[in-house]
C-alpha cells in the first residue's frame, strides 16, 4: 500500500445520519402502515477528487442514497453538507435558486442507457434545456458546447442531430455522461453506470470515466453491485446492507483485510474469471430481510454465522479501527475477534 499522497484531504461532502423512508400505504384511505427504511442512518465523508464506491445487493439502499443526495428523493432525517465554492451548505435544506445552483455542482449518470435518453428528441434536444437553464441561451453557443462535450466522450460532432435509437448501449451511455458534464459538475453520482453494458463495452466506459475524472477533477460516487468493477475504479469503498453502511475502507485495505462477515460472504460469492484461483465460498443462508421490518440489533445477524445474543439486541455502530496505519470502519461487535481468528 502506497502512502497517501496528500494526507489531509478536503471533505467535499459530509453525509450525516441520513435517513430516507418511503411510506407504505394501504387501504382505501391510503393510510401509512409502515415505512420502507431504504436509507437508515448513513454517515459518510466524501473527499474531493476521490471515487467512493458504494456497493451492496439490491434493496440495500445504495441507489436511494444517491438519489437523496441529488434531491430526487426526499430525505426523512439527517444532513448532507456540501462545500460549495462560496461556503458549506446543507443540500437537503436548499430551495429555489440556491437548489438550482447546487444542481450545477452535483450530477448523475444512470444505469439504463436505453431509458436515460428521450427517444423523441435528438441528442442536441436532450442537452438544450439543461444548457438554457444554466444560462446558455443562444443556439450557436449551445451547439458549440454540445460538440465539445461529445468530443470529451469520444463521439463525433454530427451525432448531436441524430436520435437515440441510432446508437448502441455504449454510445448512449457516453452521451449520458456528456449530458451530466454539461453543467461542469464537481461530483457525479454514477448509479450502476456500467452494469447494463456488454462486457466488452464496460471497459471502454470505465476507462472514459477515469479519464474524465483526471481532466475535470471530478469526484465520483460510484454506486454498483459489482465488486470487481468497484475494485477497479474506487479509491474507497463503502459496503451497504439494509440501509446501513457496514464497512468502509480504502479499496486495497478492504479487499486485503475484510472485517465484516457480510463483506466476506459477498466477496466469496463473486464468480472470478480465473480458473486457476479456486476459493472457499462462504455460503449465506436465506434472503435479505425486508427493509420495512429490519431485524432488531445488527441487521445482518439472521444470516451471520458469528451471531451472538448481543448482535440480536444491540445494533453495532460504524466505528473506526486501524490496521497497518489505515483507517478501516466496520460495524460489527465481533470484528476484532473474527479478524484475530478467535471466533469460529
Amino acid at each position: 500500500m502506497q502512502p497517501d499522497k496528500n494526507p489531509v484531504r478536503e471533505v467535499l461532502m459530509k453525509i450525516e445520519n441520513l435517513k430516507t423512508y418511503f411510506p407504505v400505504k394501504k387501504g382505501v384511505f391510503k393510510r401509512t402502515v409502515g415505512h420502507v427504511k431504504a436509507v437508515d442512518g448513513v454517515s459518510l465523508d466524501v473527499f474531493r477528487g476521490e471515487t467512493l464506491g458504494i456497493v451492496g445487493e439490491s434493496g440495500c439502499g445504495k441507489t436511494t442514497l444517491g438519489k437523496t443526495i441529488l434531491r430526487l428523493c426526499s430525505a426523512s432525517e439527517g444532513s448532507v453538507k456540501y462545500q460549495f465554492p462560496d461556503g458549506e451548505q446543507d443540500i437537503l435544506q436548499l430551495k429555489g435558486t440556491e437548489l438550482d445552483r447546487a444542481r450545477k455542482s452535483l450530477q448523475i449518470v444512470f444505469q439504463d442507457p436505453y431509458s436515460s435518453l428521450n427517444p423523441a428528441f435528438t441528442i442536441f434536444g436532450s442537452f438544450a434545456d439543461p444548457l438554457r437553464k444554466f444560462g446558455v441561451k443562444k443556439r450557436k453557443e449551445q451547439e458549440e458546447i454540445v460538440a465539445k462535450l461529445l468530443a470529451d466522450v469520444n463521439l463525433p460532432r454530427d451525432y448531436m442531430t441524430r436520435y437515440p435509437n441510432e446508437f448502441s448501449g455504449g454510445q448512449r451511455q457516453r452521451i449520458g455522461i456528456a449530458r451530466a458534464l454539461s453543467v461542469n459538475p464537481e461530483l457525479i453520482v454514477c448509479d450502476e453506470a456500467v452494469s447494463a453494458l456488454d462486457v466488452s463495452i464496460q471497459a471502454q466506459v470505465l476507462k472514459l470515466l477515469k479519464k474524465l475524472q483526471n481532466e475535470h477533477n471530478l469526484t465520483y460516487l460510484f454506486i454498483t453491485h459489482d465488486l470487481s468493477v468497484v475494485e477497479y475504479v474506487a479509491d474507497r469503498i463503502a459496503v451497504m446492507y439494509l440501509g446501513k453502511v457496514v464497512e468502509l475502507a480504502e479499496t486495497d485495505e478492504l479487499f486485503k483485510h475484510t472485517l465484516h462477515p457480510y463483506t466476506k460472504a459477498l466477496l466469496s460469492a463473486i464468480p472470478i474469471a480465473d480458473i486457476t484461483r479456486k476459493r472457499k465460498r462462504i455460503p449465506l443462508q436465506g434472503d435479505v430481510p425486508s427493509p420495512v421490518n429490519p431485524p432488531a440489533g445488527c441487521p445482518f445477524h439472521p444470516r451471520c454465522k458469528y451471531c451472538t445474543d448481543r448482535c440480536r439486541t444491540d445494533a453495532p455502530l460504524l466505528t473506526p479501527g486501524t490496521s497497518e496505519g489505515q483507517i478501516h470502519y466496520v460495524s460489527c461487535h465481533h470484528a476484532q475477534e473474527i479478524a484475530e481468528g478467535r471466533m469460529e
Partner: protein
Amino acid sequence: MQHHTHEVILEIKNLDVNFYTNQRCNKALRGVSFSMRKGKTLCIVGESGCGKSVTANSIMQLLPELSRIESGSITYQSKKGEIRIDTLKRNGQQMRRIRGKEIAMIFQDPMTALNPVFTVGFQIDEMIRSHNAVSKRAAAKKSVSLLKDMGVSLPEQRVHEYPHQYSGGMRQRAMIAMAMACSPNVLIADEPTTALDVTIQAQIFELMLELKVKKDMAILLITHDMGVVAEMADDVAVMYMGNIVESGTAEQVLASPAHPYTRALLLSIPVLGKGKNQKLEPIRGTTPDPYNRPPGCQFAPRCDYASPVCLEQMPPETDLGEGHMVRCFNYKEISHAAR
C-alpha cells in the same frame, strides 16, 4: 470432438437459424455445432445479440413465429433412441412430450415462467401430472419434496403460496423445482441468475452443481459473465455474432484462449482481487449491425490480428487437439504472441 468419458446426450450440428422480422432477414445462427454430455455443464458465453439465447430456444423449439431453422440438426439421445428435434413440429405432441420431461428450461426472469394467478404448488403439480399418470395427491406430495430438495424452507406451507409471495431467489428455486419435476436429462438455463444478487446467485449455482452430480444431468448454462463460466463450466463455447468462435473444456478456453475475441474479452473485464492498477484493454469498436454483417470473420473489424483473408471468408473450425476448437485463421500467430 470431446472426450468420450461421458456419454453425449444432445448434439447440434451446423445449425443455421434465420429471423425474418421487420421485413429483413437476420442470420442469427451460422454453423453452430456442439455436443452436451451427461453429468457435465456446457456454458455458452457471449455478449447480447450473439445468438446464445437463440441457440437455447432452438433446442426447445421456442423460436418466434417469424424465424426458422434453415439447416443443420439437433439430435437428442432419448432412452428409446435418437430423436431429431429440428424435424419435429413446433407444437406437435412429440415436441411437447420432450419439453419438460426430457429437456427442461429455466429463464432469467422466473416471473415469466410462473403464472401469477396460481399457487406455486399447483403449477408444479400440473407439470408432474401432464407428463406422468399420477394421482393428485401423489403429485402434491412430490411437489413438496421437490421444493424441499431445492432448498425452500417450510415447503409444506410454501406450496400454497403465490409467486409474488416468494423472493427473487426463492422464485428461481421454485422454477428449478418445476423444471426438475419430471427429472429431465437436460436442463437449459438461460441467464438464470442475471436478475439475482451475487449471494443468491451463489446459492442457485450450488443447487445446480448438486443436481448435475446427483441426477447425472447435462446442463446448458447461458451467460454473459466470464466469472460464471470459470465457476460453473466443464465445457465452454464462446459465441460472437451467431458463430461459435471457440470451444473446449473450461481449462482450455479460459487458461489458454486461442481466439482473439476470447482473449480480448478476458482482458476487458476487471477481475476481483487484481486491484486498482490492473490493466483493462477495452475491445475497440462496437458489435456490428446484424443486418449489415462483415463478409468474412465477424470479429475481423475489431480484431488486432486481422489479415486480408479474415475480411473475406469465415474461418473454418480448427481442432487444436483434445476437443479444443477455434475458428480463426491466425490462431498460431496469436498464441505465439501471447507467450
